């Protein structure tokens, strides 16, 4: 069956306004937040109900047509990159908040609900939803589930996987399954754990039950300015070493501070080679005790200015520079790549030194903004395409990931593998590791139709045993896949 025939089938069942076939309209969906990769989808559907999602997926399965799910499209790894020969299922019309049950500390939402909406609904009751990716004003919960999104405050609160207690999912054959719910510890294999963070390759979440948390009594946000990154790094080590667990510790270097000043005039202390934002939250007495200890550690490490945000307005001002940093580098560079890598926290200083050396030897500037508390780096690789720097910038960006791996880290802390980093998966994992992961894929999606070509460098035929591949890969021989 052709996509055109599927399109008329979907139009009949979902209605005219839920199917897009016009090339100009399809182009809207050609990429996600990683715009370097583009592909105009063969067909776009915008279902409103679980039954519609199930119908679309079942028909795709019956006709062996690949499909990709997409939320708000803010992903930064090309995880929602569509396929020319496939159907893109856009979940942004499923936006109902089905329940907010404070006494159960749970909310039930459809996947198109925007992350921040959850905390907005919970706030009047004194509760909040903890995962706070920086795109939280626009990113959807369904996308958060796919990517296992974190955020600045995941140092204390963990990631999406720690906050999802129930899922309704449409499996890649169209079957609808309810996993977990309000109660903890669902019996059997932890399918929610397997699904969250699977980057849309194991099915499509159509309902998400999340944990709501009691809002902390007190929040204290400190901005500390240092002459050097080393000093700021020493402060981070001292804070963590003292057994203090802040909600967030963020670091910015001179170049990213410069960019943020140019963009939003955040007013960070002049002459800072690095700033730290340390946010503590919890019971007032605890925050008070930790707060003075944090200030002491920062001063001892050489902080030349400490600013304590005393109210929400001041807190917003402190965070403004940090939250605008990615976009702000556009002020100081024609083009840039946002990288996402992780190193053990204790390796931060060394890796930052290596990145600085790399920048000076290649002439490609790198601005550093990162979640210092958990070692998650977001180097911004600055370049000018019109000066022919693209290739060198990509090399620098790749080399940074290699540095992360050399220090025992990861190629992605929160942006995901998607389309962008599947080649690097082979650097981080052995062929057996990847084959065994793909056993999970084979259990969920034996026909390999659900967001195919993402996460794994080499697709595998279900039924092969791990580690027993001989000769060329069958999919490769068949001309279906390339091996990276």
């Amino acid at each position, binding site marked *: 069956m052709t996509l055109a025939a599927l399109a008329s089938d979907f139009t009949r069942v979902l209605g005219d306004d839920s199917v897009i076939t016009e090339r100009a309209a399809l182009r809207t969906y050609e990429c996600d937040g990683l715009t370097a990769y583009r592909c105009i989808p063969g067909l776009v559907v915008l279902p409103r109900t679980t039954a519609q999602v199930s119908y679309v997926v079942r028909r795709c399965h019956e006709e062996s047509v690949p499909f990709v799910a997409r939320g708000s499209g803010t992903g930064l790894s090309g995880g929602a990159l569509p396929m020319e020969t496939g159907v893109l299922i856009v979940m942004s019309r499923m936006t109902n908040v089905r329940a907010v049950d404070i006494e159960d500390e749970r909310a039930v939402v459809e996947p198109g609900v925007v992350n921040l909406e959850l905390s907005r609904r919970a706030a009047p009751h004194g509760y909040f939803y903890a995962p706070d990716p920086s795109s939280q004003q626009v990113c959807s919960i369904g996308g958060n589930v796919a990517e296992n999104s974190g955020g600045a405050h995941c140092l204390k609160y963990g990631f999406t996987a720690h906050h999802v207690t129930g899922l309704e999912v449409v499996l890649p054959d169209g079957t609808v399954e309810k996993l977990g719910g309000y109660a903890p510890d669902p019996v059997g*294999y932890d399918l929610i754990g397997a699904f969250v963070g699977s980057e849309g390759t194991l099915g499509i979440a159509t309902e998400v039950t999340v944990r709501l948390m009691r809002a902390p009594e007190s929040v204290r946000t400190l901005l500390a300015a240092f002459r050097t990154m080393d000093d700021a790094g020493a402060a981070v080590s001292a804070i963590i070493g003292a057994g203090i667990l802040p909600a967030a510790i963020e670091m910015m270097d001179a170049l990213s501070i410069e960019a943020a000043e140019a963009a939003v005039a955040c007013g960070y202390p002049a002459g800072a080679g690095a700033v730290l934002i340390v946010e503590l939250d919890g019971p007032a007495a605890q925050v008070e005790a930790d707060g003075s200890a944090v200030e002491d550690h920062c001063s001892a490490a050489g902080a030349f200015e400490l600013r304590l945000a005393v109210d929400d307005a001041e807190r917003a001002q402190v965070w403004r520079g940090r939250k605008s940093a990615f976009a702000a580098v556009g002020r100081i560079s024609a083009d840039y790549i946002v990288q996402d890598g992780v190193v053990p926290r204790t390796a931060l200083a060394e890796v930052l030194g290596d990145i600085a050396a790399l920048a000076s030897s290649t002439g490609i500037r790198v601005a550093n903004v990162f979640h210092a508390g958990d070692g998650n780096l977001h180097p911004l690789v600055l370049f000018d395409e019109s000066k022919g720097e693209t290739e060198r910038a990509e090399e620098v960006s790749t080399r940074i990931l290699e540095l992360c791996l050399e220090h025992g880290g990861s190629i992605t802390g929160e942006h995901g593998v998607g389309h962008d980093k599947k080649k690097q998966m082979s650097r981080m994992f052995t062929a057996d590791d990847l084959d065994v992961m793909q056993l999970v894929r084979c259990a969920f999606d034996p026909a390999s139709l659900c967001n195919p070509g993402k996460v794994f460098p080499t697709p595998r035929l279900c039924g092969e*045993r791990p580690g027993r591949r001989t000769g060329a890969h069958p999919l490769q021989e068949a001309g279906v896949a390339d091996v990276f």
Partner: protein
Amino acid sequence: MSSDAVTVTPESTADLADAMRAVEADDARVSIRGAGTKQGWGALSRETSVVIETTRLARVIEHATGDLVLTVEAGARLTDVQNAVAAHGQRLALDPPERDATIGGVVASAASGPWRLRYGTPRDQLIGITVVLADGTIAKSGGKVVKNVAGYDLGKLFTGSFGTLGAIASVTVKLQPIPPAMRIVSVAADEPGAVWAAVARSTAEPTAVEWDGRTVHVLVEGAHAAVEAIASTLAGSLGTTTITDTLPATFGARPWSPGEIGIKLTHRLSALDTAVAALRRELPGARLSAHVGSGVVWAGWPVADVASARAAVEALRTVGSTVVVDAPFEVKQAVDVWGPVAAVSLMRRIKDQFDPDHRLNPGRFVDGI
């Protein structure tokens, strides 16, 4: 297992893989175990001719103290791990009461204790895992950094899988700083629901809230300068003046003894008293305890007879998910210990992918897996 089963005690991941390959070559079935503290948990295993015991696979591979990350082989005892990291002011935030348990066993059974309120369960501590499949394939997922989304999370899939997908060779877990001070606020309560409602409304952020059938104990941890103030405020709102700085001996203990039925009932948080009432009604004379605020109530019941055990469990399943955790042989034979399971056909497909010949801990898990 059969009485003449061969026991193998691998000392390395490579040994473990060799043992698995030997099992496959012999077309045998195998029981995988750690210290054996929870051999009574789960459904009855079908007969196996080989036992793989991980207790000699027990090295600490790396304790990155500054990173609060520990990589340890599966057979290391939780108590030994806690002692080792405590020397650096750290702890693994898992406190199931089976103190001789191995770390692999804790992960494989998803065993948890009071601290789960603040820190979650084993799935939430795990940041990396190395497993050996039934055919000897060694595979890892995750890593040794606390933030990492590269690849599928096999650790979560293996957590609570009761050894039916493969043997856990080693795990990497995050550690937590040991808080300098603690207070326990205690309040008598026949039914813990109202106490929980008050704790939930407070902003004390307790580490644990445990009910032992008579009293709710709220564990508050933090800085020396903070815990007294937090505990006093909390005590005031709970209408008690009992504040101590030592945990009661029974804190977190499972409420059953050998030979009794141990039951775990999970519930939505607002239904705590409903769950307690159902357990009292269906299991007369049972001892109860609860991880209050986590949605878990435990019961220990001296067995009357198999038929009434079966009837009671059936009745409890209309209230919430009810697992017969531990029970005498005759009860396990007669009762569906796991109860109804969502998406069980998908779980079977996962089992078929990981252990296609169904060699590992056969029958122990849900639906005969």
